[in-house]
C-alpha cells in the first residue's frame, strides 16, 4: 500500500479481539476503511460482525487490539465517544423508543442542549433533502418499520459523521425501499463519507460496495473487491464450504388436490394499540404445496399467525378450516389435534421457554397430540418417553449442543430453530404453518430447514411459510402472496413471480395496477 492511500484511510483496525466467556467472538480482526468508500462486512449469523461494529461504536469493550482513526490510535469507551470522533450507527434491531416522538428520539443521541423544536426542524429539513420524508412529531410506536429506519438514518446523519455503520439495513425493506436507500448511500459516498455496510445479501454488496471484508467464526477470512467476485464465490468465503442449493421438485395436479388449510374472509381488530388489523384475508393451501407469504415486518404477519394458530380465536368458526373441519373457534390445542403444527417467529419466549430443557420444550407443544405416549393417569408426566423423543429429534435434525438435554437458551439460534422445526416435523403434521423459518439462522441450518419443509409438502402436507426473506420464499414456495397493511394479495405462482412484482406488492401497490415509475415508498 503506498503512502498516498495510507493517508486516505479513515479507520484502521488491527488485531481487535473480544471474548465472551470461553467464546472468541472476534479473533484478531483487521479492517481498513478508506475515505469515501462503501465497505461491506460480510459473514454468516454468528460470524462476529455485530460484535465488531459494537466495539467500533463503543458499546462493547475490546479485549485487545488497536483502533486507528485518521491515523491516530483511539480508545472508544462508549457511544458518545464514537459520535464525537465522527462515527454514526444505524442499528439492525432499531434502537428507538416507541413511547417518544421522532424528534425526541433524535434528541437523545445529540449531546448538546438544543431545544426539541430546533431539532425537529433540522431533522425535517434534512429528511426532505435526502428524500426520506419524516414527521418529527409522530410517535415512533405508530410508525412502520421503514419509517423507523428513516429516523435512525436521519438521527445518524444529523451528527454529521464521517463513518456511518449500517447493520443489515435492507432486511426490513421492500426491494424498492432498498433502492431508495442505495441512492442515499451513494450520495453520501459522493459527499466523501465512508460507509461500513453489513449485509448477507450478496447481490447488493456486489452492486454497491467498493471493498469487502469477510468474517467467519470470529476471524477475518478474506479482504476482496466484491465487483471482482461472483455471488457464489462470496458465499463460499462466508460459509467456508459449498452451500447445497435447496431442491424443489415441481408439483403436478395441484389444482385438484385437497385444500388442507383454508382461510375464509378472516378479519381481526387490532389487539393492542400498536398492532395491525387484519382485513378480509382468504387463502387456500393444498396438499403437496408450499405457499409463501412475503411482506415487510409489521404488516400483520404476527397477527395473522396468531389467528391461524389459534392463539387468538375467531368469533366465526368457518374463517379457519383445517382438513375440511371448521377450526376458527378451536384453541391452538384443538387445531393441533386436527393435525396442524405451528412454528412462531420468536424462538425464545414464544416457540420455546428459554430456561426450560429441550425435553420440556418438546412437551410444550406436544403434550396434547401425544398424550397417550407422554401422559399417564392424573396428568402424570412420563419423562423417559419424552426424553427418548427429544433425543430422536436431536439426532434427526443434527442439533448441536453442549449437554445431553440443555436449556433452550443455551443453544445457538440455528440449532434451536432446527430443534423447534424438528419437534413439529416429528409428528408428520398435515398442515404446517411457519413464521420466519430461518431468521437469524446460519446457511447450513437454513438449507436443512428449507429442504425439510419442501419434503414435508411433497409427502402430502400443506405448508404455509411467512417470511421477510424474499430469497427464501423464491427458493421454496410454489406460490407467493404478499401481506401489506393487514391485507393479503392473491398468490402469484412461482413461475410468474419476480422480485419486482412482489416488491411492488410489499410496498402497497395493487396487483395489476403497479406503475413501475411511481414511487412506492
Amino acid at each position, binding site marked *: 500500500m503506498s503512502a498516498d492511500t495510507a493517508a486516505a484511510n479513515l479507520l484502521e483496525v488491527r488485531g481487535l479481539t473480544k471474548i465472551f466467556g470461553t467464546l472468541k467472538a472476534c479473533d484478531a480482526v483487521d479492517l481498513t476503511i478508506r475515505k469515501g468508500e462503501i465497505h461491506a462486512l460480510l459473514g454468516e449469523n454468528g460470524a462476529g460482525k455485530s460484535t465488531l461494529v459494537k466495539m467500533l461504536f*463503543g*458499546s*462493547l*469493550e475490546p479485549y485487545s487490539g488497536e483502533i486507528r482513526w485518521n491515523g491516530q490510535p483511539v480508545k472508544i469507551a*462508549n*457511544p*458518545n465517544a*464514537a*459520535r464525537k470522533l465522527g462515527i454514526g450507527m444505524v*442499528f439492525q434491531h*432499531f*434502537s*428507538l*423508543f*416507541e*413511547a*417518544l416522538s421522532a424528534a*425526541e428520539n433524535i*434528541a*437523545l*443521541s445529540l449531546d448538546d*442542549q438544543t431545544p426539541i423544536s430546533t431539532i425537529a426542524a433540522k431533522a425535517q429539513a434534512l429528511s426532505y433533502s435526502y428524500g426520506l420524508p419524516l414527521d418529527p412529531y409522530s410517535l415512533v410506536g405508530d410508525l412502520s418499520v421503514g419509517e423507523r429506519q428513516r429516523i435512525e438514518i436521519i438521527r445518524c446523519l444529523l451528527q454529521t459523521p464521517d463513518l456511518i455503520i449500517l447493520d443489515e439495513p435492507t432486511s426490513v425493506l421492500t426491494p424498492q425501499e432498498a433502492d431508495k436507500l442505495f441512492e442515499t448511500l451513494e450520495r453520501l459516498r459522493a459527499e466523501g463519507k465512508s460507509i461500513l455496510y453489513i449485509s448477507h445479501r450478496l447481490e447488493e454488496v456486489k452492486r454497491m460496495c467498493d471493498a469487502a471484508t469477510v468474517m467467519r467464526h470470529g476471524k477475518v477470512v478474506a479482504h476482496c473487491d466484491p465487483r471482482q467476485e461472483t455471488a457464489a464465490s462470496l458465499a463460499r468465503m462466508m460459509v467456508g464450504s459449498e452451500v447445497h442449493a435447496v431442491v424443489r421438485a415441481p408439483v403436478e395436479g395441484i389444482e385438484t388436490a385437497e385444500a388442507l388449510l383454508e382461510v375464509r374472509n378472516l378479519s381481526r381488530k387490532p389487539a*393492542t*394499540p400498536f398492532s395491525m388489523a387484519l382485513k378480509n384475508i382468504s387463502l387456500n393451501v393444498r396438499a403437496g404445496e408450499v405457499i409463501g407469504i412475503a411482506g415487510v415486518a409489521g404488516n400483520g404477519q404476527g397477527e395473522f399467525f396468531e389467528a391461524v394458530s389459534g392463539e387468538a380465536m375467531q368469533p366465526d368458526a368457518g374463517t379457519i378450516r383445517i382438513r375440511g373441519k371448521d377450526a376458527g373457534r378451536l384453541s391452538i390445542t384443538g387445531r393441533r389435534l386436527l393435525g396442524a403444527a405451528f412454528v412462531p417467529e420468536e424462538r425464545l419466549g414464544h416457540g420455546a421457554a428459554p430456561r426450560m430443557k429441550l425435553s420440556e420444550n418438546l412437551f410444550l407443544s406436544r403434550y396434547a397430540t401425544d398424550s397417550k405416549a407422554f401422559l399417564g393417569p392424573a396428568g402424570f408426566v412420563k419423562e423417559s418417553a419424552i426424553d427418548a423423543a427429544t433425543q430422536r429429534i436431536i439426532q434427526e435434525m443434527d442439533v448441536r449442543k453442549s449437554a445431553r438435554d440443555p436449556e433452550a437458551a443455551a443453544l445457538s439460534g440455528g440449532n434451536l430453530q432446527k430443534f423447534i422445526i424438528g419437534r413439529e416435523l416429528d409428528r408428520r403434521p398435515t398442515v404446517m404453518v411457519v413464521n420466519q423459518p430461518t431468521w437469524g439462522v446460519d446457511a447450513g441450518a437454513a438449507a436443512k430447514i428449507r429442504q425439510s419443509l419442501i419434503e414435508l409438502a411433497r409427502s402430502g402436507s400443506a405448508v404455509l411459510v411467512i417470511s421477510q426473506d424474499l430469497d427464501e420464499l423464491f427458493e421454496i414456495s410454489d406460490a407467493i402472496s404478499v401481506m401489506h397493511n393487514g391485507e393479503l394479495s392473491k398468490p402469484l405462482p412461482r413461475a410468474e413471480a419476480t422480485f419486482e412484482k412482489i416488491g411492488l406488492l410489499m410496498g402497497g401497490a395493487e396487483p395489476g395496477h403497479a406503475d413501475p415509475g411511481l414511487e412506492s415508498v
Partner: protein
Amino acid sequence: MIEQILITIATAATPLLIAAIGELVVERSGVLNLGVEGMMIMGAVTGFGVALTTGSPWLGVFAAIIVGALFSLLFGFLTLTLVTNQVATGLALTLLGLGLSGMIGEAFVGQPGVKLAAIYIPGLTDIPFVGRLFFGQDPLFYVSILLTVGVAWFLFRTRAGLTLRSVGDNHGSAHALGINVIRIRYLAVMFGGACAGLAGAFLSLVYTTQWIENMSAGRGWIALALVVFASWRPLRVLAGAYLFGAVSIGQLHAQALGIGIPSQLLSALPYLATTLVLVLISRNRRLTMINTPASLGRPFVPDR
C-alpha cells in the same frame, strides 16, 4: 369550617403525594420499587428520633430524607447490580423496614414528639377563609406542591427528564445509544427513597407527632396505587392524592359524627377505595398499555 376540612384533607394527602411523586420518578425510569412502605416507615422513625434527640424538627426532616435514600440503595444494589426480582426485593425492603423501624422505635414509644410548626406570614395568613389554607400550612405541604410541579417540569421539559423516560421505555435502546441506564436508575431509586423518607417524616413530625409502630399503615402501598391511578403523570398524582385525602378525612368525620357504622368498617374505606380505583383504571386496557413505562420491572444486564 370548610377551610379547616380542606386543611385536614391536605394534611392527609401530603404524605401520599410526596411518596407517590418519588415512586413515579422511579417507575418512569423502568424500576418498580414496592418498598415504599418500608422506606416511609424508616423515614418516620428516623425523623421522629432525630427531632426528639436534637429538638430540631428540621434536622429530623433532613435525616429522614437521607435515611430514605440510603435505605433505597439496598434495593438499588440488589435489583440494579445483582438483577434480582424487583417485586420480591421491594417486598423484602418493606418487611425489613417495618422490622427495623419497630426495633429502632421501641425507645420512642409513648414519648411526646416535636412538631414541625405551620408557617405564619403576618397579613397573608390572617386573610379570612383562604389565608390559612394557602399561607398557613406546614412547610412540607408547600414542598409537596413544589415537588410535583418540579417533577412534571423535569420529566417533560428537560433533556435529563427525556433521558430518564427513554430508559424506562426501552433500556436496551438507551444502552445502545450510550446512555448509562444503571446510573440513571440508581439516581431515580434514591430520589424515590428520599421522597418516601420525607413522607415518613411528615407522618411522625406533622401528622401525629408521636411514634407508633407500623404508623405508615399502608400509605406506602396506597402511594404505589396512586402512581398507577395517575397513569404515571405527576399532576394526576396530585389529584389522586387529594381524592384519597378526602376519602380518609371523610371517613374520620363520619366516625366522629357516630353515624352508626362501626369505626373499623369506616377505617377500611381508604383500602377499599384504593382497590376500586385500581380496578376502574385498569379496565381501560388501552390507556394503561400506552402509559405504562414499557421496561417497568424488567431486569437489565448491560453487555460490555
